[in-house]
């Protein structure tokens, strides 16, 4: 219903237009640069006068600086927009090339900056030439581009608008149908009235045995119906009782909206990165918040596209969810440090085997080498995590019957594997043939 394929076009168009403009603006700047260069006839070192190319500077900045510096926000290092106006150019050259030497030389300004940033040591960049640094500084001196937000709002309006129109169409259709029915009834009534007025006699129908009575009198039909009814009832009863205790499709609302689609799908982060205990423990643990912070220390906001997608398609404000994480883990963005005030996140556990069944993740993940998706389904496509498999005993057993065990490179058990394969007359033994069906394997 809500499928609207082309709502993104305005936003894409506007982004394209912006990109188009920016491309031209940079070329203009570059032309200005070359004009400068020509005027001053300083061949080979166009940036020696302190004017750099911001486009080149951006790529240099992203490659060298962006790990620790952002333009408008403090990260590991301070925000860098406008840094060229703050400090002397020569001093900046010296600092970037080897900040530690500058500090050691007793430069008061260097020591002040060092102290102000938790004494974190800045990487030396001896490979950067003065021209490179000029380019970077030209990039950091650019005015902040304020992105006009109406694209996102427009999208929302458009999508909700089409939803409304769909509803209107449906409502109109129902109205038309109702009208038709009413009209038909009225027409038949008036026709009958006209008929009686004209003296047409419908006549009394001869009263035979009512169908209900004849049905009751027919013993055979009654028996067949009873049997059919019982069978249908049994079928539905069976279905009902079999789904008791099965949580397939269970998708609770989590305290922090975490999108597996973005993390495991779009960003291709390995499942084991966060669920690291699946490799070596019974449980595939819910990652502790320090694991989130491995990346989110640096990523405080999602990209604008992602944010718009979250708002429009899933109704989630991803940036707010990251703020929830910061609150729980006690991370202060302004000081880039932990406040020490943390609170637990009450994640809702989804997959939960009953206490009488034993399951070990490491046995399946590390030893068996089974992909997580085999049991958990296409998690990388799930915006909201849900239980994919029924996790019933029949489901376990079925897989044990079908799955061949990889026994290569396991010399210690070679003999028994060969004996088993011979006994069952197969090339490769399945988990079931190795005792994977014995009650005591999982129930004890």
């Amino acid at each position, binding site marked *: 219903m809500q499928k609207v394929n082309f709502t993104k076009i305005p936003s894409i168009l506007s982004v394209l237009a912006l990109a188009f403009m920016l491309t031209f603006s940079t070329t203009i700047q570059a032309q200005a640069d070359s004009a400068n260069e020509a005027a001053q006839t300083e061949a080979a070192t166009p940036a020696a006068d302190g004017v750099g190319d911001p486009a080149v500077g951006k790529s240099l*900045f*992203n*490659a*060298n*600086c*962006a*790990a*620790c510096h952002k333009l408008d926000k403090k*990260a*590991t290092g301070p925000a860098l927009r406008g840094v060229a106006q703050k400090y002397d150019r020569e001093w900046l050259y010296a600092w970037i090339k080897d900040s530690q030497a500058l500090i050691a030389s007793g430069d008061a300004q260097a020591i002040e900056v060092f102290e102000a940033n938790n*004494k*974190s*040591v800045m*990487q*030396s*960049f*001896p*490979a950067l030439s003065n021209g490179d640094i000029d380019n970077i500084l030209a990039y950091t001196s650019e005015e902040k581009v304020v992105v006009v937000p109406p694209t996102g709002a427009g999208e929302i309006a458009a999508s909700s608008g089409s939803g409304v129109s769909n509803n209107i169409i449906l409502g109109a259709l129902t109205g038309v149908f109702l009208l038709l029915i009413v009209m038909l009834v009225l027409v038949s009534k008036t026709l009958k009235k006209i008929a009686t007025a004209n003296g047409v006699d419908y006549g009394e129908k001869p009263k035979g045995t*009512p169908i*209900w*009575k004849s049905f009751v009198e027919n013993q055979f039909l009654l028996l067949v119906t009873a049997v059919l009814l019982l069978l249908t009832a049994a079928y539905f009863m069976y279905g009902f009782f079999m*789904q*008791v*205790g099965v*949580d397939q*499709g*269970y*998708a*609770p*609302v989590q305290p922090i909206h975490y999108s597996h689609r973005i993390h495991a799908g*779009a*960003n*291709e*982060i*390995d499942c*084991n*990165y966060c669920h*690291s205990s699946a490799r070596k423990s019974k*449980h595939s643990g*819910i990652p*502790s918040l*320090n*694991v989130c*912070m*491995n*990346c989110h*220390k*640096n*990523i405080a906001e999602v*990209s604008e596209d992602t944010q718009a997608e979250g708002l429009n398609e899933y109704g989630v404000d991803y940036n707010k969810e990251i703020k929830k994480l910061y609150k729980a883990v006690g991370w202060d963005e302004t000081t880039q440090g932990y406040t020490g005030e943390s*609170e*637990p996140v*009450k*994640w809702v*556990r989804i997959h*939960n085997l*009953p*206490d*009488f069944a034993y399951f070990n993740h490491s046995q399946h993940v590390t030893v068996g080498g089974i992909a997580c998706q085999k049991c958990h389904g296409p998690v990388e496509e799930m915006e909201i995590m*849900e239980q994919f498999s029924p996790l019933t005993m029949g489901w376990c057993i079925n897989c044990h019957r079908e799955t061949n065990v990889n026994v290569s490179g396991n010399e210690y058990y070679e003999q028994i594997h060969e004996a088993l394969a011979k006994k069952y007359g197969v090339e490769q033994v399945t988990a079931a043939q190795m005792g994977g069906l014995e009650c005591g394997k999982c129930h004890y």
Partner: protein
Amino acid sequence: MKIINMNKILKLSFTLIGFLAVVSCASDGKPNYQYMNNMYEPVGYETYGEADIFPGGQEAMLPAEGSIPRGWQPYDYPNTTDGLNLAKTDLKNPLLVTEESLAEGAKLYTIYCAVCHGDKGDGKGILVQREKFLGIPSYADPGRVITDGGVYHVQMYGINSMGSYASQTNELERWQITQHVMNLKATLKGEPIMKPAKVDEIDNALMMTASDLSETNHSLEVVGQKH
């Protein structure tokens, strides 16, 4: 007769309403009901369960202060710049280069490091390509001194924007990753990479490393002997 029919319809509609009521209760947001709760719910506190006895009501808590994971060894280099520099020069990889250790290191590297640092260690992982993370240096970066000890130290404590990986990996795994990182760096720089030792060499080397390790690391010794 008509009355009987009405009754039937009434009954039927009641059962239907009842059925719908039961069915509509099954929502995705709540777990299904169970047959015999006593057999489903554990006697002990369930992993990630909730119970009033715990602070915050959660079974999942931080380990008690001073608790030590099994196989844990003290790591004496402090989480400071001096500590890092000391580790860079003094700390050596106690792990023998074997096929298993290299393979395991590569596997773990792919899980934990490659998203940013790239499969080749050139700093072009998927997160960098998608511009989620920027400025990840290549291991071959001339401005950086990358040694065994430094790589291990950074995994242990993290550095700048990179977090600590001590909670996701153990000591052995960190050294395996270190081996792989050093090989990646050598490949990027065009230097010879570490190759697994031959079997008879391993036996000799084991005797040596065993005595070397005895001061620093016991758990690795045991692992080394398995090969």
